[in-house]
């Protein structure tokens, strides 16, 4: 009895997992085959506006305050240890590698992921997706690819924007309020934050963008009937994206530090 229940549950989740990857595969295929048609590009622009432009304020606020909080928290300890001038290293490395990508992605997931799932979910339960299919237009091409591309491309750009806001806000606290001299602060920062760290941050945010776009669209396309089904799909999408981001973040961090040590050896920052 219990075994059959467990068996059925595993079977169902395996099936859902397979469906998810099929969905990703079809999206990828349409991305390449649809690339050369003007009519498809016309669909992408409104989504870029929706995802990008509308998210700028939240991302700016997130970045700015995270930068300032980091600076305020770190200053006393570093000052006591006599490392205050190197505060920029700590601050910017944390921002570029960890907090920038993760927080920007989480904000984007909340702001856009939920809205995407709700929009597609409503279209699904009101038969609009069926109507698209019945008229011979692939809903993956028409609905999913533009939204997915917007998430994939804009997540790194918004992350970069959050990084810049945080970095500026942090240095304003450090140099402006805490009177750390400007030259050593920037010198140490420039010295420590290498292309490698930027690259890791970029790859992370690209993968997070992929997760947000794919999971939000998938959940919208496979939601249950009724307003309740749409609401539940939104919650599930957000939770799934959030957990996936944290787990993936851990694995990329482990992998990238390991790889760095293998390639260049250990780099001490102090």
């Amino acid at each position, binding site marked *: 009895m219990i075994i059959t229940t467990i068996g059925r549950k595993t079977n169902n989740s395996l099936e859902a997992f397979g469906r998810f990857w099929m969905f990703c595969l079809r999206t990828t295929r349409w991305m390449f085959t649809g690339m050369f048609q003007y009519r498809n590009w016309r669909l992408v622009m409104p989504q870029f506006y929706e995802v990008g432009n509308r998210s700028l304020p939240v991302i700016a606020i997130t970045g700015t305050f995270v930068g300032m909080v980091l600076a305020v928290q770190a200053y006393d300890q570093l000052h006591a240890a006599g490392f205050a001038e190197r505060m920029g290293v700590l601050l910017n490395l944390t921002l570029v590698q960890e907090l920038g990508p993760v927080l920007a992605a989480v904000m984007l997931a909340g702001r856009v992921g939920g809205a995407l799932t709700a929009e597609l979910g409503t279209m699904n339960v009101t038969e609009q997706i069926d*109507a698209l299919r019945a008229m011979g237009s692939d809903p993956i091409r028409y609905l999913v690819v533009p939204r997915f591309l917007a998430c994939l491309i804009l997540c790194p750009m918004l992350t970069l924007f959050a990084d810049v806001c945080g970095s500026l806000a942090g240095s304003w606290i450090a140099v402006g309020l805490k009177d750390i001299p400007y030259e050593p602060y920037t010198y140490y920062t420039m010295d420590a934050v290498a292309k490698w760290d930027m690259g890791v941050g970029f790859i992370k945010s690209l993968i997070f963008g992929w997760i947000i776009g794919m999971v939000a669209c998938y959940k919208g396309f496979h939601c249950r009937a009724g307003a309740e089904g749409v609401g539940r799909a939104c919650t599930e999408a957000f939770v799934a994206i959030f957990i996936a981001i944290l787990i993936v973040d851990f694995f990329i961090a482990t992998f990238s530090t390991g790889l760095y040590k293998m390639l260049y050896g250990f780099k001490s920052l102090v």
Partner: protein
Amino acid sequence: MMPESDTRQSDPSASRIGAPVVELRGVSKRFGSLEVLRDVSVKFRRGETTVIIGASGAGKSVILKHIVSLLKPDSGEVHCRGERIDTMTERELVAVRTHFGFLFQMGALFDSLTVAQNVAFPLVEHTQRAASDIAKTVSEKLRMVGLDGLQEKKPAQLSGGQRKRVGLARAIALDPEIILYDEPTTGLDPIRSDIINELILKLQRELNVTSIVVTHDMASVRKIGDRVVMLHEGKFIFDGSPEEMETSDVKIVRQFVEGRAEDEQLAGIRMKGKP
């Protein structure tokens, strides 16, 4: 004035109605434990208007969705214009589906697009026509359903019946050969219903469209139907002309024609009156 059935009889229907264009062979479909279709076989012939009647929840909409392969049968085959379509991929189905117009029961308009963009949608997706040409077709189709002038409205600003008619305009935008109407007159006033019925007849006469109409409206069954089929408990229990339907002695068909419920079906509401 001649009664409607006479005008139809004067029409040489033997030559007008051709070979089967859509065929369901032994189609069964279940949703979870609910068995909706049981081994259903039916043919729809070219140029013929077939009306599907049946109780609410009988599976009429499910049948229409099988015809354009929006739903796949659990077993059985669906053939369309000589090809088997239930095994096709979405990509192969595109060519088949452009021959169809589908009016959804709830209209299924795209709510992010305006009325004009909705009606233009199949034209933009499947033709290379110029924008001015498309706008002309859109206004012509909207005039047919009595809505010209509402082009710039969003579906949310329309009434239920208006949405249904925009859906109809969209279904006929590409001048399809086969049109599936899911309750075209539900939610419309009697005059508007009659206009829609006339429109269905006109499309059939002038373009020799094959129509499959799901309806609960007995007036439109009599007016537009060449043939009536009735779905009951997952099977077709009646197949004949509207005249044969009127005189049928199958009990459930009689009840439909007369619009009358049996005593035992009324038991539920009678109980409340008596202690």
